[in-house]
């Protein structure tokens, strides 16, 4: 059999559920539902995709965009405004970066840069995967990543943190 078993599904949820949810947060207000639907859709496949994690990111991306369109612009703005008050990351003492500040900085990034950074840093995708995911070339994905990091450095003041 070449399907997906419950153990593998549990490991996928453990190791990629949070990152997938973070990735879907950039579009919709209910990212958990989108990730859950993506995992269920993966179970429905008679055969495993050749590369499961990029496949999941693609399904989550499509689902999140569809959910955001269904929710409507007004509700999406309200949800984004509400999300600004909460962090996308675990608040931990001793971190050099403030989780809330990082969340705000990520939310203020353009959508292409934000999804590239999230997919790269927390999703572990390669630039080829991200390029296939976003329908762009690898160099474009790389350029978006660098531009996003530079924008985050400005907003977070990492240079100042480094010097001090």
């Amino acid at each position, binding site marked *: *059999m070449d399907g997906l078993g419950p153990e593998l599904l549990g490991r996928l949820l453990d190791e990629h559920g949070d990152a997938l949810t973070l990735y879907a947060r950039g579009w919709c207000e209910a990212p958990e539902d989108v990730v859950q639907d993506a995992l269920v859709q993966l179970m429905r*496949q008679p055969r*495993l995709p050749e590369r499961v994690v990029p496949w999941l990111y693609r399904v989550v991306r499509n689902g999140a965009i569809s959910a955001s369109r269904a929710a409507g612009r007004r509700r999406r703005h309200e949800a984004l405004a509400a999300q600004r008050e909460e962090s996308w990351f675990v608040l931990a003492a001793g971190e050099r970066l403030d989780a809330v500040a990082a969340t705000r900085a990520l939310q203020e990034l353009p959508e292409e840069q934000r999804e590239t950074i999230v997919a790269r840093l927390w999703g572990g995708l*390669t630039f080829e995967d991200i390029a296939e995911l976003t329908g762009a070339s*690898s160099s474009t994905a790389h350029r978006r990543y660098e531009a996003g*990091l530079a924008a985050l450095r400005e907003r977070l003041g990492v240079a100042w943190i480094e010097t001090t």
Partner: protein
Amino acid sequence: MDRDDVEKARHAQRGAGSEKTSDFRPPTSDLANLEAMLSSLAPRAAGIDRDRLMFLAGQASALPPPMGQGRGEGEAPSSLPLPLGEGRGEGEAMRGAASAQTTHSPDSAALTLTLSQRERGQRGRWAWPAAFSAMTALAASLLVVLVNRPEPRVIERIVRVPGERPMAVADSPHIERDQPTLETGLASSPARPYAAFGESYLHARDQVLAFGLDSWVHAEPTPTSSDETTPSSYRDLRQSLLQ
């Protein structure tokens, strides 16, 4: 930010992701440090209900894939690009929820749903709609045929009756007894107009067809002298024969 933090962040990054190839080289050390610091931030835990997910996944694995999905997506089987640890037994809820499941574990082989069974299920799913469509098309075509069916043809046939036969009937007294006389001129034997007109039967028929039955009745001539001696009943006829 010291070197240990960077290494810790890179380690966390490798643990969270699948493959991190060397296709990206940070242009500056600042961006590399920022990348490491961002990677050290752990995403907030997803509030996904594991039991519900397993239940839904079990349901999804038991059902055939929807149209336009599944077969085309499925590629050659390959291993997951994931570091796989030990299972935690969360599949029990899934096994309980679904009647069949595609799984790698051999202990659930009795609950597995083979691909051939899925294909049979998919064919069976199309059987009834196909039969329904075929019967609907047949019923519709029969209805069209019924509506457009032409009216039944009315065939008019003219039966020629030989002229001598009524005369023979009229001459036979016992037949006349068996066939009581009728009042109407139409129901009477064809010998009557034939004898009354003294013409051919065809001529009388043509007249009736052309001008109607009334014209024939009114045109019926007065009885001749021979008619006056015609017995009115069987008794008179017998007396006249005995004389």
